[in-house]
């Protein structure tokens, strides 16, 4: 056996077998107790001095009061079926061609419409019915065909887009059917605070699922403008940040990083691509011991010489 092979075999056996060399006293429980004590002092200190952030939730009432034009435009988009939620695809709707795919892989479609949301009905018509607001407009809407409903809402949405600041009061007259009354009725109940309860109560008394409210809020621009001010949007390294000046989920930096790379972040299927990249990298990290080259990096870049410097000094 060549000397190099003998040497390698000896090293291997030394790695595997119980240590036969010198030892030092060690008390596992004592080290744990000291660790808990020291770390506890640090954590209590940070909690007492820095505290934790708590920006209040944003309600539909906050939105309607702060930016009524955005609220009306969003409600109109829900009726027209053009909002993000209404046209999202699985798991909320069955909109064709809305899913993110990678070649033949379409996991979004495979998962199915498990959390069905009818944006026009769930966000606008049902709450108006529950709150008995604009009942005549609701009746007219319900009596119309879906094509007519879409035509009315689309025309009104276009008109709002051309109005000064999107102000409904400056919209030119047109054939909008009951849509202006529906959206104004929704705005009125939202400003009074009743819409939050009406949408939430669609899930019953013990509803713990605010998904419809969060999706409705996110269809407008008001919600994202608040997030931008708190440096939370995707192009600001997204959800790894926390409101205020707190560290947040810094361990998600690599996930957020890929969205900052224009070649990836601008892709229509960026979310799916980033998920695949992260799954791949996580598997690589877990399997480093078996990957030639990668597992040899610690030998090539001798950081271990620093870590075990006392051992090497005494060789």
């Amino acid at each position, binding site marked *: 056996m060549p000397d190099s092979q003998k040497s390698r075999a000896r090293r291997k056996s030394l790695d595997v077998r119980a240590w036969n*060399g010198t030892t030092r006293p060690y008390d596992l429980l004592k080290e744990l107790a000291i660790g808990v004590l020291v770390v506890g002092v640090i954590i209590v200190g940070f909690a007492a001095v820095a505290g*934790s952030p708590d920006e209040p939730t944003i309600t539909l009432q906050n939105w309607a009061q702060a930016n009524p034009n955005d609220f009306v435009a969003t409600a109109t988009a829900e009726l027209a079926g053009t909002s993000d939620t209404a046209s999202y695809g699985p798991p909320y709707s069955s909109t064709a061609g809305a899913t993110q795919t990678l070649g033949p892989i379409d996991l979004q479609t495979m998962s199915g419409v498990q959390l069905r949301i009818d944006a026009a009905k769930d966000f606008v018509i049902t709450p108006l019915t529950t709150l008995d607001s604009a009942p005549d407009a609701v009746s007219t809407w319900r009596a119309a065909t879906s094509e007519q409903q879409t035509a009315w809402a689309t025309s009104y949405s276009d008109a709002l887009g051309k109005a000064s600041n999107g102000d409904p009061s400056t919209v030119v007259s047109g054939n909008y059917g009951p849509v202006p009354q529906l959206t104004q009725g929704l705005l009125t109940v939202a400003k009074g605070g009743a819409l939050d309860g009406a949408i939430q109560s669609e899930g019953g008394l013990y509803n713990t699922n605010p998904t419809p409210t969060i999706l409705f809020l996110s269809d407008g621009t008001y919600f994202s403008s608040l997030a931008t001010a708190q440096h939370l949007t995707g192009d600001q390294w997204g959800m790894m940040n926390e409101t205020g000046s707190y560290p947040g989920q810094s361990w998600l930096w690599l996930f957020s990083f890929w969205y900052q790379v224009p070649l990836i972040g601008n892709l229509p299927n960026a979310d799916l691509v980033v998920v695949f990249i992260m799954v791949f990298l996580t598997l690589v990290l877990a399997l480093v011991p078996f990957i030639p080259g990668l597992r040899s990096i610690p030998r090539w870049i001798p950081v271990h010489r620093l870590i075990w410097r006392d051992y090497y000094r005494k060789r």
Partner: protein
Amino acid sequence: MTDSQLPQPTLEPEPEDVDHSWSGRLRRWVLKVLPPEKLLPTSQPSYVATWIYMFGMGAIASLVFVIGSGAVLSLNGPMWWHLSPLGHFFNSLHLWSVEFFFFFMVIHLWAKFWMAAWRGNRALTWITGVVSFAVSIVAGFTGYLLQTNFDSQWIAYQAKDALNASGIGAWFNVANFGQMFMWHILLLPIAVLVIVALHVLLVRGHGVVPPLDAAESDSQLRETTPTEATSREA
């Protein structure tokens, strides 16, 4: 009856004396792979004497505070911390214990990478460490979804796209507070604790990996080798 006909004493039990029950087999296996002196050691190899070894213990110490502060928050419900200064303090404890848990864990992970700590049949120890890191990220993420404030609203909105695109969102709805609540306070803590416990037991079972390129000629091995060799020969 001659001496040769007498039953000879044996150190090893006869096969029929061995307890073949499931419990007996498990007990023998546990004592073989993890004897008490390995589980609760009172000495360590002399090379285990650098500050870098503190970070693994630091992560476990932080986890104690993560679980403890989370348990207190659980006692009073998810809205308590908005209404009570004491609740807010415990929320702050929970936040900072999580921050330090990840801080210690990441340094521990990098240190173990540069030490090539998977050597000597320790690959599973490395893998469980990476898995515990990944599961902890999911646990921390669900915690951020439960803040019941603006941040949790925004994270739920923003995170849904990656999960929906990969087909997970249909079954793991980040905007569903009730579902995330159960994942965060029950399923994921169990997963983290089980994997971390397995990781620690593997570390104890295999022992701390020797320095890279450690050789029999090293002084810390040579000093005790004659005695050890003599006792082994005996």
